[in-house]
């Protein structure tokens, strides 16, 4: 097992407009990207679960050109609305960091 934090080059979140978070996981090497992709852990269902939204509301894209996985999910509270805690959406990536990918990162 290897956590996303231990194998990804980038793991980040940001608003995609005031009503959505977009979360990106990017790998440095194509080989690692392909191994992660083959495990099928990074998929829409995972993001629906972590961000507590309906599966149908997750826009999930695998983007090989950037060795990236991208998910866009609706915000429970729009940016700047009463109770919002992250106007830019820049710190909503943390739940991804501890997601385990079933590969041996020492391979």
């Amino acid at each position, binding site marked *: 097992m290897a956590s996303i934090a231990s194998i990804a080059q*980038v793991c980040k979140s*940001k*608003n*995609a*407009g*005031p*009503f*959505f978070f*977009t979360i*990106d996981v*990017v790998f440095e090497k194509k080989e690692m990207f392909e191994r992660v992709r083959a495990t099928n852990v990074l998929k829409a269902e995972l993001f629906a679960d*972590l*961000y*507590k939204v309906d599966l149908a509301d997750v*826009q999930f*894209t695998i*983007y090989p*050109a*950037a*060795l*990236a996985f*991208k998910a*866009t999910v*609706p915000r*429970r*509270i*729009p*940016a*700047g*609305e*009463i*109770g919002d*805690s*992250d*106007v*830019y*959406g820049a*710190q*909503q990536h*943390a*739940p991804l960091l*501890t997601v385990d990918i079933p590969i041996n990162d020492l391979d």
Partner: protein
Amino acid sequence: MTEVRLLSTTAILGYGFPEDSLKRGLARKPHLMGADAGSVDPGPYYLGSGKSFASPRAIKRDLQLMLRASAETGVPVAISTAGGAGGTPHLEATAELAREIAREDKLDFKMALIGSEQDKAFLARKAAEGKTRALAGLPALGGETIERATRIVGLMGPEPYIEALDAGAQVIIGGRSTDPAPWAAAVIRAGLGQAEAWYAGKMLECGAEPALPKKEDCLFVTVTEGGVECEPTNPIRRCTPMSVANFALHENSSPVRHVEPGGVLDTTDCVFEAVSDRAVRISGMRWEPSDRLTIKLEGVELVGYRAVAICATRDPVLIATIDPYLVRVREIVAEKTSAFGIGAADYELVIRVYGRDGVMGALEPYKGPLGHELCFVIEAICPTQEQASAVIAIARTTMLHSDFPGRLCKEGNMAIPFSPSDLEAGAMYRFSVFHTVEVDTPTEMFPIRYEKV
């Protein structure tokens, strides 16, 4: 072969760039230089209040270097989403800075001001005709929502910029614009394709952001038929195929489908080739025109007024019992505020607990033990500032002095970092309009005013 050269100076006008990077960019004789000045990311306050999230001092510094360079070289300047949100006060504030710079530096130029703030009667008519559509799951645009809005702007595409360039404007200050608009304008105007034009705009909207290492700086883009070439002007930065591909992830819901006013830019089949160790050529972008012309709207409405207090505890007994304590605090605040005439319906009290779930709220997955201190950001929102300040004063003192089981720190539960302890945060807004409107022409919502500066 037609070639269009474009110089983007920085990520946001007012975020800064090295003066030398501008000089290096100008040496390559761009057809247009510019900077995006806005973003919706800083939240609804800026559109509502008419203020900018970058300081006037910082905006003036960047704009002054660009206007001086324009006077020396004749290269026109385009500033899009002026003043951060592109409303009329934002546009006017940026225009006033341009006039001030012209006076100080003895410059003269033809300036175009492109308005994007929308007339409520026009929008109400469009809504009644069924020509508006909600985005992001919002309710349909009704007359009441339009009426309640403090300010609504439309996001212009390239066409108003094309018109201003055709009219010979040397300095264009645009209201709310889709980020690629001014850049796409220069490319389309030169007769190159929509796909290359929008892709170039996507690359340029954030300065040197597609380059490494990351810092606000200038990006130079050369567009020819079928391709776009990106290179940062600062020799310490470089674009790589991966850094450019990665930039497609930035603030987009999809890295490959980009919805724009007149169509969709599809980058699924883009090819990224290094042309040097610092420059990348991208080809294979496609443009799918849509059958209807739609303009996106952004609008905000006033929620109320906010007051804030910050305090923190270092007491382990309180930390161990923090949830029931905060319930008790809310009860006492309700009792005391109702005694001076502010009922439960008149205020919202938000208590953010940093050290527990202040950043993620209900989405926080961590359920382990808490640390040795907790910080509270307490916020009251009321119909008036006076009410909000009254509620926050009671909430702050209640947080400080309320009793709890096993309490040892009987003189006070909170460290309060400032005097005054309570901060008046002023008006608070929410995004209330996030819709599209169908129009007949891409310029009808964006009047241009020309001025001899």
